């Protein structure tokens, strides 16, 4: 089963992962990643009170689906689930979930990392921070060069295939 969902509601990581093996016996491994809203999202200053995630409805799903399709072309996946939340989240809240299923672990690990790396840099989501000393103290989170480099690594790998 391959599934991409964008939602405001929380998700149940264990229940999502279980869906990948439900009713089948060919799955040998499921890799899951859950991204959480972290309190120290920015260095210095006061603590993070909340994050608001804005997204581009329609494109967000399509962009992630394109990367799931590419992951399926690169690795022998038996299933993948990507869930990304939007709206206002507080530290500790789950933001994103990626699960991949395959007969063997290598493909599942690699595909999960591939999907997360592309999700960070190409899925149309934007985070705005609220600081403990008021909403005006926060601001839009800036993209990190290290995230771009993580995603570009996969493009280089592809060039060498």
């Amino acid at each position, binding site marked *: 089963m391959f599934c991409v969902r964008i939602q405001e509601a929380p998700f149940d990581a264990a229940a999502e992962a279980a869906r990948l093996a439900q009713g089948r016996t060919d799955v040998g491994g499921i890799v899951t990643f859950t*991204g959480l809203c972290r309190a120290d999202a920015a260095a210095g200053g006061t603590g993070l009170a909340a994050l608001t*995630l*804005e*997204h*581009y409805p*329609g*494109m*967000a799903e*399509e*962009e992630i689906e394109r990367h799931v399709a590419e992951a399926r072309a690169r690795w022998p996946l038996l299933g993948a689930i990507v869930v*990304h939340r939007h709206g206002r989240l507080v530290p500790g809240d789950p*933001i*994103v979930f990626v699960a991949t299923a395959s007969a063997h672990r290598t493909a599942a690990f690699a595909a999960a990392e591939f999907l*997360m790396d592309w*999700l*960070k*840099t*190409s*899925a*149309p*989501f*934007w*985070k*705005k921070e609220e600081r403990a000393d008021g909403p005006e103290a926060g601001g*839009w*989170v*800036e*993209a990190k060069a290290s*995230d771009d480099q993580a995603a570009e690594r996969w493009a280089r790998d592809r060039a060498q295939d």
Partner: protein
Amino acid sequence: MKILYFAWLRERVGLAEEEVAPPAEVATVADLARWLAGRDEAHAYAFENAAVVRAALDRRHVKSDAPLAGVREVAFFPPMTGG
């Protein structure tokens, strides 16, 4: 054509979306960004550092030299910070 703005571009323009009819010489994404920037102060502020602004045509990422011919929906946004 329909223009969508996200994150700080939306805040600076003061609109989430607008319908525009640029002249024929506006042929690429970069042309459109320049033309929009000339509309008023809010748009000029949004596009003041055009090099950091990303774009999508009909929900696909594109570079600034991408042609607009046949496009229905253009989105402008900062680098993405999801995940």
